[in-house]
């Protein structure tokens, strides 16, 4: 129980990795997080390559601190979201990382492939900003407060 408590406290202090190339969406997500009173630090990766770099760090350096949760868009430049997910799940150190796919796509195949590759959750970004804020709020509550993370 002790251990668990410390982990949960840890989760709230750890940063959130937002993988998103659209600056509007970045700002909207930040606004939504702010509105939802989620005060964790948010680091933003503009493409898949950058996201993997942040997660894996440079060679020869100390491995970077892991985020509490990764909010992953699918349609991003260079390495796309699903490939980033696959890379995360196949890398030993970070394979238990919480990854929430947060995307505009509601395509069935995207959803299925996302889960196949081991996404913890799939959330479609609503157009309605209020709904979006609500979604982000629920997301934060669930994944950062309720959920017991593995890493």
């Amino acid at each position: 129980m002790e251990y668990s408590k410390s982990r949960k406290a840890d989760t709230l202090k750890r940063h959130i990795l937002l993988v998103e190339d659209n600056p509007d969406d970045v700002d909207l997500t930040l606004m939504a997080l702010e509105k939802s009173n989620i005060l964790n630090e948010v680091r933003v990766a503009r493409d898949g390559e950058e996201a993997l770099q942040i997660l894996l760090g440079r060679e020869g350096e100390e491995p970077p601190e892991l985020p509490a949760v990764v909010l992953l868009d699918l349609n991003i430049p260079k390495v796309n979201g699903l490939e980033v997910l696959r890379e995360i799940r196949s890398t030993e150190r970070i394979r238990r990382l919480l990854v929430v796919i947060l995307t505009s796509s509601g395509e069935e195949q995207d959803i299925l492939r996302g889960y196949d590759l081991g996404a913890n959750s799939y959330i479609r970004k609503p157009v309605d900003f209020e709904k979006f804020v609500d979604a982000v709020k629920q997301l934060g509550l669930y994944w950062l407060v309720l959920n017991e993370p593995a890493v």
Partner: protein
Amino acid sequence: MGMQKAVIRQFRFLRVITYFFKRQCNCDTDGLRLERENPAPQPVLKTPDQCLSFMWEPNKYRLTQLNPWNIVLIYLVLGFLWILFSDRLLEQLIDDPATLTQFQTYKGWFYVLVTSLLLLLLLMRYSARITHMRSDFLDRLDLYRSLLEQGNQVVLQVDDSQDFSYSNAAVKDILGYDEDEFRCMGDYESIVHQDDRDRFKDIRTVCDAGIRNNEPVKQQVRLRHKNGAWRWYQMILTDKRGFEHIDSRLLLIRDIHEETSMYERLRESQIRFEHLFQEAPVGYHSFGGDFTIIDINKSELNLLGCSREAVVGKKTWADLIVPDDLPTFEQHKKDLLEKGYVENLQYTIVREDGTRRSVILNARAFFDDQDRLLYTLGNVVDMTEQIRAQEEIRELNISLEKKVIERTRDLEMANRELESFAYSVSHDLRAPLRGIDGFSQALADKYAEKLDQRGLQYLDRVCKASQRMGMLIDDLLSLSRITRSELEYEQVDLGAVSREILETLKDREPDRQVDFDVSGDLVVTGDARLLRILMQNLLDNAWKYTSTRDRARIVVDSAEIDGRKTMFVRDNGVGFNMKYHDKLFVPFQRLHSQDDFPGTGIGLATVQRIIGRHGGTIRADSKENEGSVFYLFLPDKSV
């Protein structure tokens, strides 16, 4: 010694006498034997042959053996011998002259008695024979007369002046004229057919000049029967023999019309068959026992491209086909000899000019008593064009298939493009919309004090518009997804699905008074996911358009309409004007204003597309302000 000599002499005399008698008797017995040998020994002769044999073989009855001359000769010989030897015999036996004279008188009486008896015997026999012959002759004469009169040919006797001195009664039956009428006709040429007059004249000429070599002259001519019809007759001119010499001629006329016309018909039919054989569009041929061609028709010669002379008696089938077909031909020959026929044999033949034709051969074999092949009859059909056409059809089919594959590939590519378009629509168009909405809200939130009431209203409208566009994009995407997804057939209970949907709707707006009636047979075969979307859209509409009613009523049921199970969804909502019925199922077409009833206008388009994909039909019936009914028909597909 003298006595002995006399006895010997006497003996010789007796032998001579017996010899003559014997000869006479032999003649008789010969004659009798001949009669006995006759197959019909009755006195009345029955067949014409027997009658004629009397004429042709007069010696058979040995008339010369017993004629008066013979009788006299026999008498003379016997008398001479008697006179010569009887006195000398008496002289030798009797010495006394008185006794001798007396005996000589007895001898004279004896001689007269014996010769009289002999004469009587001979004359009786002669007379009996004459009587017998006469009755025979009369019998035969009757027979000839009846044959002549009842016979089936006209018999005319032509005398030297070219007149008919006799005609039999058959002239009436055969030519239709009375005997006298015919004999006095005079101008006979007038009843002879124009084309046959030359032949008729030939007969007349021969009649004048006499018949050569005993050969009867025969001609076939058409004569006009008294009833006016032309008929074929055979005329035979022959000599009439009297007892001594040819005294006149006989003209025989026989009606051969039936035979001739039958022959003509036969000839015509033969010509027809010959024509058919030669001109039929099928090749006909006949092979001999050694498989050499013995007959061939024109069509097959055309097919082979060579002349009759080049093949008949010279070539066999093996010479006409391509070398590859030779082993098959050997096998087919065996089959033919075994079964007696072969059918639908395929061959490729080489024409004289080297080109090839594909043919089908059927043949039948004919054998003699020892089962040796006499000849075959075969027909050959040129299949080249058919095979070429089949080949073309096959090629066309292949190219068609190729085209179908190409088209399918194109279609698949277009579908993929559409999919990626839909993907980018879903992804890329929504992002800027979210931006518009989000930043408008942020503006409204954070800078509310800097905007007046109208500015805030505008911002609200920007948000609403972008949200609506988001809905439109979502609906459009779901419509395209319905079109693209694969159908998975299973049994679906639309009643259960409807109840579930209606319950959800009720939960969402618990204040509304809505009566449900879901009943009837609503089990169908189809894609469960799509059918649920279908019912969702229909019931959403029913729910939506009854919102103005105090007591709404929604019925889901099925009925037999036009002999097939049809489901229907009925409500008592606002309905629509049937005038706009056509626009009901068109995407984005709405019949009500957004203010009255919000919506994107994609629901019924989706419904129709789902029904269409299942091969079913949908139609709507409505009256404004009274409600509407949607009838659904889904064909029964086995799971």
